């Protein structure tokens, strides 16, 4: 039981299904001529993004506003943080202002949980991505996007049973991959990670997944091609030899895309390195590229999470 959302690993399958079913409701709200409800009127949500983010931040912001909550944007660069105030002091300050929810992103794995352990009982902490650890709302929105694609809605018993998802790229440094794996496998999907040894996480044998280094041998078995963003630093660190080599082995090029069955869908948490993870032409012209759908779904998924934690009066179990 928790009043926070820190990691999808804390949630049972049933709790994930409940959040996805609640998302169905907020998708409908988004289709109304006035897509805003008064459910969190009077609640204040602080956004603490200590790491760059565009879509997650905007998406949380819009979700909070569509629930009629007040949003406190915390400027992490110009604030007294740059004067050496600790994150702990900052959180204390914001809490003293009577905030109901803290949405936090930080490059340090585990920080949201530390904060959750310290805040008083009336505050809900929502992890918007911490280091390499977790990005629970991304995991939920990716799972929701697949449920929606395969079954139109999540429904009360959201399931990805019988779906084979490949997650391709820098799994080692990806919190999205960690949360996606948990969300997908909770719902019954089979997951195969595809990455060179250098980009596989150290304890990957403990993950509930299959692992491959050879994309071309497993690609025909995928129903979903889940791409991850490759960071340029990985090259400087010598974890991949060159962009060309990476594209050659792991990029969804036009040639590879041409071999995919039409119904195979492609996802990517964005922003896409065009021409690296995914060829420009595939991104622009192929049907069943769900990247925009993922962005769209970010809002109702985050509305569901915010409403569930701040408005429903029921803890997630």
């Amino acid at each position, binding site marked *: 039981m928790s009043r926070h959302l820190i990691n999808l690993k804390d949630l049972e399958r049933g709790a994930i299904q409940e959040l996805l079913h*609640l998302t169905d*409701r907020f998708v*409908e*709200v988004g289709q*109304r*001529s*006035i*897509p*805003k*409800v*008064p*459910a*969190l009127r009077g609640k204040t949500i602080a956004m603490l993004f200590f790491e760059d983010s565009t879509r997650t931040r905007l998406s949380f912001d819009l979700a909070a506003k569509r*629930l009629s909550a007040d949003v406190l944007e915390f400027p992490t660069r110009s604030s007294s943080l740059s004067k050496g105030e600790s994150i702990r002091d900052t959180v204390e300050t914001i809490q003293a202002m009577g905030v109901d929810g803290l949405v936090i992103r930080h490059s340090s794995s585990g920080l949201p949980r530390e904060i959750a352990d310290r805040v008083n009982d009336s505050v809900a902490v929502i992890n918007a991505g911490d280091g390499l650890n977790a990005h629970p709302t991304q995991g939920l929105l990716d799972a929701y996007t697949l449920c929606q694609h395969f079954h139109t809605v999540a429904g009360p018993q959201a399931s990805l049973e019988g779906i084979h998802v490949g997650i391709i790229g820098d799994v080692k440094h990806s919190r999205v991959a960690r949360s996606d794996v948990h969300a997908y496998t909770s719902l019954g999907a089979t997951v195969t990670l595809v990455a060179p040894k250098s980009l596989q996480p150290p304890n990957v044998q403990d993950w509930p997944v299959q692992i491959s280094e050879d994309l071309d041998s497993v690609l025909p078995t995928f129903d979903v091609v889940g791409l991850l963003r490759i960071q340029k630093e990985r090259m400087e660190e010598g974890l991949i030899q060159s962009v060309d080599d990476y594209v050659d082995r792991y990029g969804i090029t036009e040639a590879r895309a041409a071999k995919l069955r039409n119904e195979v869908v492609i996802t990517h948490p964005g922003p896409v390195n065009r021409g690296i993870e995914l060829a420009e032409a595939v991104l622009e012209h192929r049907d069943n590229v769900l990247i925009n759908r993922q962005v769209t779904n970010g809002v109702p998924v985050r509305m569901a999470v915010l*409403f569930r934690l701040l*408005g*429903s*009066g*029921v803890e997630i179990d």
Partner: protein
Amino acid sequence: MADRERRMTPPYGGVFFARTTVLDAAQVQRALTRISHEILERNQGLEDVVLVALQTGGVEIARLIARRLFEIDGVDVPMGTLDVALYRDDIGLRPVMPEAETEIPVDLAGKIVVLVDDVLFTGRTIRAALDAITAFGRPRSVQLAVVIDRGHRELPIRPDFVGKNLPTRRDEVVDVNPEGVLLGEMRK
């Protein structure tokens, strides 16, 4: 019985025990027939009329009214459903979850909306519904049809079409379904 009623009436989630039958199946059907005629009469036909059923108790009732209206006037009145959980004024006071589908098939701007529910009690659900439907356009007018008006209003809201006025105690529970209306209470 409406799940909403079950959740809102202490002891929450108890079991319903019926004490008296208020209306039998035939009486419910007659009441719905009369309400349907009254809707027609009040609006001089069915042009622009849209039925909006409150989840979950109003849905079956609204379907029956829609069928009657078709039998009487040959018009297929559009019908939508509305879950008002996100508009309630007691969010935070007790567990509130949107549990049923909201589906409004037409733009409500300029329409005559007839809200349909099984029981009218405090009026707070209807207050929330009035708020909610503004998100779907500005209706020309909004009317309210209920099978049972059980009193205890906490807001200045009144029904336009009523199956039966039923004096109740606050802690009693009214169970409405097409087979009859029962008065009883929740027990753990």
